[in-house]
């Protein structure tokens, strides 16, 4: 009687386990279907009409031919918004910055723990919760002299790496909506004004 009960319990657990495997496969297939390519695509190195739109939203021309002054203003803005300067190259007009912040979202952590508990109960093996824990945001700002207009073009772009509580990368992406660029350039305009009037 006890043996039969144990056998039934084992069969039930095996059944749950196979259902869980099927569920994972289905989820993985959905995940793959929704993702972009994960290997190098040569056409990603091609300039397209979308590049034009992207360049327009990432770039502004400021009415000053003094590129060094613009670079100083850029550094000040990056510091204002919490970035540390990693690299600067005046001759090429390049400033690179980064900042690290928490990526913990309570809803995701709660869902992750729930999933881990359910998976542990179903499989009989301890499953650790995995969730986004920290993120590194990076920015590069590049200036270019526009001699015809006696101005300086400034171009900015952002990206982000998100790490899990296990130390692996869970997300890597380009950041940048039109609003982000507009806000950045509004701050840069103000910074240039402040720099110009502080001397």
């Amino acid at each position: 009687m006890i043996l039969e009960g144990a056998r039934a319990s084992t069969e039930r657990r095996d059944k749950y386990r196979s259902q869980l495997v099927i569920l994972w496969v289905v989820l993985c297939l959905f995940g793959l279907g929704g993702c972009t390519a994960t290997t190098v695509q040569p056409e990603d190195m091609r300039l397209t009409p979308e590049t034009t739109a992207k360049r327009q939203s990432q770039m502004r021309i400021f009415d000053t031919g003094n590129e060094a002054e613009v670079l100083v203003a850029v550094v000040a803005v990056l510091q204002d918004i919490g970035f540390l300067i990693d690299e600067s190259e005046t001759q090429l007009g390049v400033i690179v910055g980064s900042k690290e912040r928490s990526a913990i979202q309570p809803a995701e952590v709660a869902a992750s723990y729930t999933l881990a508990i359910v998976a542990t109960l179903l499989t009989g093996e301890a499953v650790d919760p995995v969730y986004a824990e920290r993120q590194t945001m990076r920015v590069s700002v590049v200036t270019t002299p526009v001699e015809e207009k006696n101005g300086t073009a400034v171009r900015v772009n952002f990206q982000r790496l998100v790490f899990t509580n296990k130390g692996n990368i869970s997300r890597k992406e380009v950041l940048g909506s039109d609003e982000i660029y507009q806000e950045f350039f509004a701050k840069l305009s103000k910074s240039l004004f402040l720099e110009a009037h502080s001397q």
Partner: protein
Amino acid sequence: MSRARSVSAGIGVLVLAVLQAACVVPMPEDAIFEDDATQLQIRSIQSREYEVTDRIRVMRAVIATLLDLDFVIDEADSDLGVITATRMSGYLLSATVVVTEKDDAHLQVRARLQTGWTPLAGTAVYELHASNTVPDETYREFFNSLGKNLFVTSLWNPLP
């Protein structure tokens, strides 16, 4: 009897330990020279010469092209002519581009692309496996884009 058994067990463990020490498989060192292609082939795929003498102008064009292609610049050194950048759209792609003088009238641009890993990831294990090769076509597309930025378009104007 039991003493003899424990002595023979001890000898067995010792023999196994010696065998294991002898069986440590050395890591192949040929990963240093991993590419099967010849040096000439590799250089011809990864390099282009341009009839320009202004190195800074070419480096600025390289930077603009990398930004157009969704890279974020990691480092730039105008003295050495080195630019490194990382792209994080879908997959990780790191680029190292070096601009050097070929002769009095030409500059050479050499690009090396690496996928699957970036120093920015720190100790995170990610995507580093043999299938992460960069197709030769990728370099052709990159140099075509650089050529357009260098000769066809103004870097601050929209593309035609």
